[in-house]
């Protein structure tokens, strides 16, 4: 898994690239760890740019759930954006759209999270 981050306005945008499958789920979780640690109440909201993620399995979804729950427990704010159509369908079918806010574009995500920050 590859990660790239940038600070846009008040939002930390993390671009994830690759497949979050059974093999890569732990790498996703580990790669996200420093961003999660910083995403606390009053801190910078976290936007996951999923435009480079072309597959997510149940184990990957579990990792995503752990990320969301950890951030939630810290009173931080997190969302996903620019999800590829097939991955978005998987998020919908698994009901993850009820767990994490999904924005159509990175700009929309930044605007929404920035307004909440």
């Amino acid at each position: 898994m590859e990660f790239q981050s940038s600070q846009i306005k008040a939002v930390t945008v993390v671009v994830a690239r690759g497949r979050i499958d059974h093999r890569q789920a732990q790498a996703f979780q580990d790669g996200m760890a420093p961003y999660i640690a910083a995403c606390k109440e009053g801190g910078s909201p976290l936007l996951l740019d999923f435009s480079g993620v072309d597959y997510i399995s149940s184990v990957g979804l579990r990792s995503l759930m752990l990320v969301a729950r950890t951030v939630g427990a810290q009173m931080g704010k997190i969302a996903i954006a620019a999800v590829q159509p097939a991955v978005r369908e998987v998020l919908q079918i698994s009901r993850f759209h009820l767990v994490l806010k999904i924005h159509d574009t990175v700009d929309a995500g930044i605007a929404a999270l920035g307004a909440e920050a």
Partner: protein
Amino acid sequence: MKVRFWGTRGSIPVSITAKDVRAKIAAALRAARDSASEEGTLGDDAGIERFIDGLGFALSGTYGGHSSCVEIETGNEDAGNEHLLCDMGSGVRAFGESMMKRYGPARQQTYHVFMSHVHWDHIMGFPYFMPVYIPGNRIVIHGCHAELEHAFKRQQAVPSFPVDFSLLGSNIEFDVIAPGETRSVAGVTVSTLKQRHSGDSYGWRFEGAGKSVVYSTDSEHRLENAEETKVFVDFFRNADLVIFDAMYSLADAISVKADWGHSSNILGVELCQMAGVRRLCMFHHEPAYDDGRIDNVLAETRRFEEITRSGSALEVLSAWDGLEIAV
């Protein structure tokens, strides 16, 4: 082999209500009104049947509400009067009625019941299973729980039920099987696997005449545990049909309902794809779901299978009370 579903609902039996029926009738009539301009649509009985078929199952039928009970018809002529069942939820009452109609009280039958576990929704139909009251019938209850016999006898005792277990007319035997042991029943080899559920549950695999059916309900899976996943993939391997506990959405199963002992449609598809299974039948439906919602889950699960397919297609079905699947 043929698999016949007598009870498919999880946790507690449910029934559609008068309000549900009225909504179905209203929707059907609206559809009839909209199609009235099409010549011959409802002109004869065949047209009416075609119209009903076109309404879709959630409107023209119902998934039903009995708790777990599945019949495995071996198709083995040598099996004679031996019948195979999985679990004795409320659906076993209707199964018992059908057996009484077919054989009457005079023709003695043997019923082999394979218990996933002894939680209430899986044993509650037993006191209403008419063949247990008929002398000469033989009921063999197979299971892996040491307390198998106790659970059935306790349910039958006062103050829970008026007819004590000792008064049942049939010959009832309990066969406690050690996990990993197999049985040969009515020409079918039966093996079992321990599953994650409160108090443990067990999956059953039935193999005969080159066909295989897996009954795996009340089972929570952790696919992040590769070793555990491999055990289940091996158990499901190349099965013609896997009957799978798909009670919750994945998001619920790994968050608010984690450790509740049930699984999801997503995990059902993934495990079956890994195991090269031919057909997946979702089972143990959430009692809060109405017909429309179960139908939606089925459509979404078929789409998920399509999105994630890498080899042969996995056929995805959703069980309903009365469904028959030829294997």
